[in-house]
C-alpha cells in the first residue's frame, strides 16, 4: 500500500514537472503571441464587456491582417468574468500560469480590474485596463496601465460642465456605494463643484443592483436642487431616471461614462431624454481615424461602436505598438515600452501615458436626444 502511494506521488510530481515545463511556451520567440483578455461578457455589465471585447477583437484582427507584431500573429484568449466579484482574480491566475499570456487586457469595471491587478503585478505581466477610471487601479503597481482618463479628471470636468453649461448652483448627488467607481467620481465631482462656488444640497446613497430608489429620490426632490448628478452604471441609472420622472423630478440628470450603453435608453425610455453624460469618445468626431474605425466596426458587428469598444480597440493597439517598440514580449521590457507611450493616435483621442501610468486624453460630453447619444462638446486635458 505504502509503495503504491509513493509511486502515485512520484508520478504526480513528474506530471507536474512536465506540465510546468510547457508553461513558457507562449513566451517563446516563435509561434503566436498570446494576449489574455478578461471581460464581463455576461451579467449586469454585459453591455460594457461585449462592446469592449468587440473593440479588442477588431484591433487584434486588424493587427494580424497587417502581418502581426514582430512577424508573429497575436492570439487573443478571452475569458468571461460574468460581471461577478471574485472571478477576475482566478481568471488572471489562469491566463498567466496556464496559458502563458504576455499581457492582460481588462476590465471595464474598476472593482474587477483591481482584483486582477495584484496578480499581474506579482507575475510581472503588464495589465492594460481599457476603461477603468478609478485612480486606485494603476496605483497597484508599475505593471498596471490604462488607456482612458481617470475619475479625478472626469469629476472635475463634470463639475465645470454643471456650472458652465447647466448653470446649476444647487446640486443633488446620488451615489452607488457598492462600486469604487461611483464613490470616487462623486468625491472628485463634489470637491470641484464646491470649490467653484456651487453647493451640494443633498447627497443620497444606494447599492448597485438595488431596484427601488424612490425613497432616496423623494428626499432629493424635497431638497429643491437645480440638477441631479448620478455617478452610477446604466442599469441602475435607467431605473433611477424612470423613478425620478415618476416622482415629478423635472431638472436635468447627468453622470459619467458608466451611463454609456444602449440599455440606458431601453430601460430608461423617455425618462433619460435630455440627460447628459461624459465619456471617452463619440463616433461623431470628424477624424478620419475615428471614421475608419466606425466603418470597420459597423461592417463586422453591425452596430456603431461606443466608447467601451473604442477603448477596447485602443488597449490592444497600444499593446501591439509597445511590443513592436520593445522588440520582445518579455514582461519588464514590455512594461518600459508601454510606460514610454507618447501621443499615440487612438480612436478615442491622442494618448500619452503619464508617470502614474494613466492616459492623458480628451473627454466628450454627450446628450441623450431622440433615443440616441449625440456629441455636445469636447474637452481637452489641461
Amino acid at each position, binding site marked *: 500500500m505504502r509503495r503504491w502511494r509513493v509511486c502515485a506521488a512520484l508520478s504526480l510530481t513528474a506530471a507536474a514537472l512536465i506540465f510546468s515545463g510547457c508553461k513558457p511556451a507562449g513566451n517563446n520567440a516563435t509561434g503566436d503571441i498570446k494576449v489574455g483578455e478578461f471581460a464581463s461578457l455576461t*451579467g449586469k455589465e454585459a453591455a460594457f464587456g461585449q462592446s469592449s471585447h468587440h473593440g479588442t477583437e477588431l484591433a487584434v484582427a486588424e493587427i494580424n491582417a497587417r502581418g502581426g507584431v514582430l512577424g508573429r500573429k497575436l492570439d487573443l484568449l478571452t475569458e468571461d468574468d460574468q*460581471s461577478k466579484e471574485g472571478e477576475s482574480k482566478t481568471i488572471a491566475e489562469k491566463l498567466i500560469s496556464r496559458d502563458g499570456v504576455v499581457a492582460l487586457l481588462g476590465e471595464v469595471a474598476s472593482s474587477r480590474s483591481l482584483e486582477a491587478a495584484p496578480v499581474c503585478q506579482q507575475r510581472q505581466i503588464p495589465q492594460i485596463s481599457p476603461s477603468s477610471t478609478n485612480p486606485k487601479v494603476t496605483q497597484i503597481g508599475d505593471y498596471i496601465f490604462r488607456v482612458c482618463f481617470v475619475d479625478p479628471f472626469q469629476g472635475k470636468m463634470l463639475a465645470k460642465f454643471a456650472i458652465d453649461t447647466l448653470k446649476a448652483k444647487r446640486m443633488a448627488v446620488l451615489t452607488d*456605494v457598492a462600486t469604487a467607481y461611483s464613490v470616487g467620481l462623486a468625491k472628485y465631482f463634489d470637491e470641484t463643484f464646491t470649490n467653484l462656488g456651487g453647493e451640494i444640497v443633498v447627497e443620497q*446613497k444606494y447599492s448597485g443592483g438595488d*431596484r427601488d430608489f424612490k*425613497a432616496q429620490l*423623494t428626499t432629493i426632490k*424635497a431638497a429643491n436642487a437645480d440638477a441631479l448628478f448620478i455617478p452610477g452604471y446604466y442599469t441602475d441609472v*435607467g431605473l433611477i431616471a424612470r423613478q425620478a420622472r415618476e*416622482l415629478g423630478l423635472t431638472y436635468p440628470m447627468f453622470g459619467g461614462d458608466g451611463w454609456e450603453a444602449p440599455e440606458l435608453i431601453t430601460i430608461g425610455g423617455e425618462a433619460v431624454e435630455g440627460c447628459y453624460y461624459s465619456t471617452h469618445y463619440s463616433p461623431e468626431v470628424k477624424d478620419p481615424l475615428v471614421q475608419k474605425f466606425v466603418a470597420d466596426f459597423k461592417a463586422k458587428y453591425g452596430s456603431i461602436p461606443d466608447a467601451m469598444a473604442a477603448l477596447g480597440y485602443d488597449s490592444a493597439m497600444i499593446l501591439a505598438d509597445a511590443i513592436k517598440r520593445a522588440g520582445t514580449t518579455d514582461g519588464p521590457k514590455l512594461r518600459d515600452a508601454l510606460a514610454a507611450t507618447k501621443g499615440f493616435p487612438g480612436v478615442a483621442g491622442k494618448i500619452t501615458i503619464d508617470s502614474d501610468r494613466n492616459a492623458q486624453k480628451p473627454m466628450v460630453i454627450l446628450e441623450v436626444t431622440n433615443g440616441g447619444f449625440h456629441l455636445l462638446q469636447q474637452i481637452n486635458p489641461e
Partner: protein
Amino acid sequence: MTGFQKFLQQLINGLSLGSIYALIALGYTMVYGILRFINFAHSDVFMAGAFAGYCFARIVPHHSIFGGLAVMLLAMVFCAALGVFIERFAYRPLRGTSNLAILITAIGVSLLLENVTLLIFNATPKTFPTLIPDKSISAGGVSLTTNELVVFGVTAVLLVALQWIVLKTRMGAAMRAVSFNYQAASLVGINNDRVISFTFALGSALAAAGGILWSSLYPSIDPYMGVLPGLKAFVAAVLGGIGNIPGAALGGLLLGMIEAFVNGSRYSTYTDAIAFATLILILLFRPAGLLGKFQIEKV
C-alpha cells in the same frame, strides 16, 4: 415639498414595496404553517414568475389593464404548476425524513432554478415590458403611478381572496387541519398530499403575482433578482410570526415602510442592517413574531 408631503410620499413608496414583500412572505408562511420547513426555493419561483411574465407578454397583447392582468394570470398559473411540480418531485420523496434534508433540498432547488434560467436567458438583465400604461398622478405634491395603484389593488384583492380561501372553503379548512395536526388530519380522512400540493400552488401563484408587480415597478429582470426580495420577504414572514397569514402581510408592509424611511434618510447605507436589527429586536421581545402564538415544541 414640505416635511409632511415628504412623509406621505415615503409612506406610498414604502407601502408599494411592502405590498410585494407581503405577497412573497405569504408563500413562505403558508408552507411553514403546514410543513414546518422554510421553502428557500420560493424566492426563485418569484423570479420564474417575472420571467414567465416576460415571455407571456410577447404572445398576449398587453398595454392595457386587462392585457396586463391576463399576463399576470398566466404567469400565476405557470408558477402554481411549477410549485406543485417542485413539491411533488423534490420535497415529497423526502417527507418524513429529517427536516434538514428537506431544507438542503430547498436550497438545491433554488440554485437549480437560478441556473436553468441563466442557461435559457443568460445573465444579461432583460427589460421587462410595460404591461400597464405607466402614468404618474400627482396630487398635493405627492405622486403616485398607475403601477403603484395596481400593486396596491392586486395585493389587497389577493390578500382578501387568500383569507377567504383559508377561512371559508373546504380546502381552507383542510389546510388548517393539516397545519394543526398532520396525523390527526389524515385520520379524519383528509388527503394530506392534496392539501400540501394545493398550498404550494397557492403560495407559488402569489409569488408569481409578486414577481410581475415587482418587475412592473422595476423593469429590469435577471436570474438572481429573487435573492434579495426573497430574503426580505422571509424576514417579513418571521417578523409577523411565521405560519401566520395576516402576520406575513403585516410583516411585509412594515419592512417596506422601514426600508423606505431609512433609504430616504442619511443612513441609507444601513438599510438592511436596520431592517435586520428590527427583526432581532422584535424576536427578543416576541419570540414568535408580532402576531404569532408562542408554542412549546413537543418532542
